[in-house]
């Protein structure tokens, strides 16, 4: 990994600038470029365990951009993912706190975990199950409430901790951005394009943009590159050596 600072220095050297008067401008552009590349090229998924509050909601992390998966941990240590349900409702009470909705018979659908277990358990034994019910995650469901910056969970959640896999904003370590070596060139092209596009005419601006997109594509290819061993491993996954006598 290299620092974003060193990429700016490279660009300053390329431009022939030996003072710092463009530094702040280039830094602002490169942070924007870093976000663009992070989402399109080398963005990594972040995983966080979060405990829902008493009302079954989870506040989104500060660096949250987009959810990938939301799940709970099973007894075996694996993850079971929750189903998305945009009909989950969490209202606010008079004080502005999240309140549980008052459930009525219509809203209480058939085929929920509780109803099925009661109806199919008699005299100490399981006597069957509804046919054709379900088909979704039984671990629980969630709704993304972006307006309130939270995840709302269904009341039948089977775990006290939710695991959130999400795409995060690029982060700083000790106040500095660290970027992959492959991103050096696209970042420089991005800053060039963004800083010059209003001053160089349409044709040249288009070329600068093209130069950035090319560099970005090359970076994507580099990141996606596989070693020969990895390729062989994939090819041979379903084969085993013939026994030799």
């Amino acid at each position, binding site marked *: 990994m290299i620092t974003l600072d060193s990429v700016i220095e490279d660009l300053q050297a390329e431009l022939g600038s030996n003072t710092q008067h463009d530094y702040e401008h280039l830094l602002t552009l490169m*942070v924007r470029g870093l976000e663009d590349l992070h989402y399109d090229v080398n963005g990594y998924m972040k995983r966080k365990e979060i405990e829902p509050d008493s009302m079954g909601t989870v506040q989104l992390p500060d660096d949250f951009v987009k959810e990938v998966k939301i799940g709970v941990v099973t007894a075996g240590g694996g993850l079971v993912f929750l189903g998305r349900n945009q009909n989950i409702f969490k209202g606010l009470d008079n004080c502005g706190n999240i309140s549980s909705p008052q459930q009525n018979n219509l809203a209480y659908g058939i085929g929920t975990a509780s109803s099925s277990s009661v109806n199919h358990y008699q005299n100490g034994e399981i006597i069957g199950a509804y046919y054709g019910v379900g088909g979704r995650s039984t671990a629980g469901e969630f709704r993304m409430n972006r307006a309130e910056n939270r995840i709302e969970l269904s009341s039948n959640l089977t775990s006290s901790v939710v695991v959130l896999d999400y795409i995060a904003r690029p982060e700083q370590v000790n106040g500095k951005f660290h970027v992959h070596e492959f991103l050096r060139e696209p970042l420089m092209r991005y800053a060039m394009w963004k800083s010059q596009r209003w001053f160089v005419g349409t044709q040249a601006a288009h070329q600068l943009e093209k130069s950035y997109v090319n560099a970005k594509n090359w970076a994507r290819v580099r990141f996606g590159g596989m070693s020969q061993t990895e390729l062989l491993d994939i090819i041979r996954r379903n084969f085993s050596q013939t026994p030799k006598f």
Partner: protein
Amino acid sequence: MATRTKRYYGNQLQELLYPSATTDAKFDIQTAMAAVGQATASYVKINILQNKAFTRTVSGNWVAEYEGEVKWDEDRLRYFSDLPVSVISLPKDQGVYLVHYAGKPEEAFIPTSIGFLSSRRNNMSQRLEGKTGYVLVEDRLVYLQEMNTDCKLLMYLIPNHSDLDEDDYFPIDDSAITDIMKMAVELYQLQKGIPQDLQNDNISQ
């Protein structure tokens, strides 16, 4: 004593305009020095920045080195450094060419604009990657973060002539002297109507 002083260039201009002028001439040495200073400022602003508009680099013998120190302003609760001389007004405040701690030339301070902290409040570039940021306010540098007041600063400035003494070093690149003299002559073209004062009799002609 530095050889390239304001007086040195003033004398050159006087020689150019009035080779036989005496010390009591109307176009005296003070006027000549002012003319050279103003012409230099114009030259840097117009010619250098136009030629290198892309990089905005001001190079050559235009920059003078000064020492400075960091102080704490009790009233305004901020760290600052006084500039030893005022600087030419240039785009992006390039009159302050480069500043760093004396022992750390590799970590140059980052110039920012007034209002930087508020305009970049929600931007991740606000921390300047841990570098030292400053704003040029009048004749002082105001720092954006806590500073070490024990360390000496080195400042590379493009000085404004009016703040320099006659015998202070006044940087002008050799290759530009002819052009600057020409500009100074044009600036004081009207003065050419003044007859040469050939007699040193304390009467200006």
